[in-house]
């Protein structure tokens, strides 16, 4: 009896598995993959397990976007308007209302206030239960995003490549994306690097 071809002995690549599950292969390619699958229990298991996973995530493939950040941007715009419209100065305790995107529940540890260094700042906030990732957004008082970073830590250091202007007012907000798709955010916080 004939032995399988060399191609039939080669394991499926990740791209092969994905294309097989999406039924996106040409008939010729599908035949080749199925010839391999017929004799390779490891690849069959790979396809079967990947298929289970794809089925599980298919109903919610498109996760909600950072609604908290949208709210943050909206709040920044409102805040900028407020700053620009009068002499009233925003303080750390000033009540800021986020227009949408969930409850402001994240605790802020810093930085806030004035006379802060222009380099080496660390943004630190409290963890949210069930958070899978965080995003920090730093803007100038004009609402333009200066820097942002996503990650799983609740602390992030400002890189040296981002140079803050002494005496300028900056705002930052941290958003948490929770496992259930909801978001939590800090209040907008303000700080001013030392002149």
């Amino acid at each position, binding site marked *: 009896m004939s032995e399988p071809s060399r191609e039939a*002995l080669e394991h499926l690549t990740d791209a092969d*598995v*994905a294309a097989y599950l999406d039924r*996106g292969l040409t008939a010729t390619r599908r*035949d080749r993959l199925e010839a391999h699958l017929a004799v390779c*229990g490891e690849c069959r*298991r790979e396809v079967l397990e990947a298929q289970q996973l794809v089925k599980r995530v298919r109903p919610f493939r498109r996760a909600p976007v950072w609604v908290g950040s949208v709210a943050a941007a909206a709040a920044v715009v409102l805040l900028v308007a407020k700053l620009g419209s009068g002499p009233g100065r925003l303080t750390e305790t000033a009540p800021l209302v986020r227009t949408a995107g969930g409850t402001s529940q994240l605790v802020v540890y810093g930085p806030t206030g004035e006379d802060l260094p222009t380099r080496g700042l660390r943004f630190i906030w409290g963890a949210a239960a069930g958070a899978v990732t965080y995003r920090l957004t730093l803007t100038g008082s004009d609402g333009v995003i200066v820097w942002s970073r*996503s990650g799983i830590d609740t602390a992030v250091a400002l890189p040296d490549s981002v140079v803050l202007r002494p005496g300028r007012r900056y705002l930052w907000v941290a958003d948490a994306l929770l*496992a259930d798709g909801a978001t939590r955010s800090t209040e907008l916080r303000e700080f001013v690097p030392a002149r």
Partner: protein
Amino acid sequence: MSEAREHAAPLELHLLLGAPEETVREAAWEKLIAAHTRLILAAARSFGGGHDEALNRYAYILEKCRETDFRRLRTFDGSGGASFSTWLTVIARRLCLDYERARYGRYPTVAKSGDNSNRAVRRSLVDSIAVDLDIDRIESPEADSQETAMVRAERTRTLRALWSGLTPREQLLLALRFEDDLPAARIASMLGLPTPFHVYRQLNGVLAKLRAALVSRGIDGPGD
């Protein structure tokens, strides 16, 4: 010949891999991850181990996706027949396997398909087919005379030859049914058949073909 189905890559992926400005790339990365967080989390959770362990895997997936200027993400080919989300699901699962292997040693898998395992699979498959065809019911030692052993060997040889003449899909169908012992519904799902009845119909067709071929070669069940 039909073309492989083409899928467009998400806009965020184009921006991530192609935009010259770092700020645009960072924003694209964040959007890409935000859009696929549940998918990646599902992959991370599918390996069990509790919340912290799932988050460790999640972080590992993100780290590996970012590695070497998004090298992995650059390998996505929309013309390869897979959608980005299915492809990313498979990649995320693969990275979880890598994580488990790096952390706990080799993740349990069945043997690689070399010549020996191929033979073993086919031998097992042939035996399964033989049982299903009701031609291999030599159960009592006293019945296993030299003559019946020869008949049995001949049947096995013939079945193997017949099996290698089946189409890849027929071979896979038999492997899923007799080697993996999967239910018809699961087989239908894997092969893209509409219902389990289609599986039974195709399975009966293949077995009938094998049975007819055996009969035509003068091999006709345990009594001959």
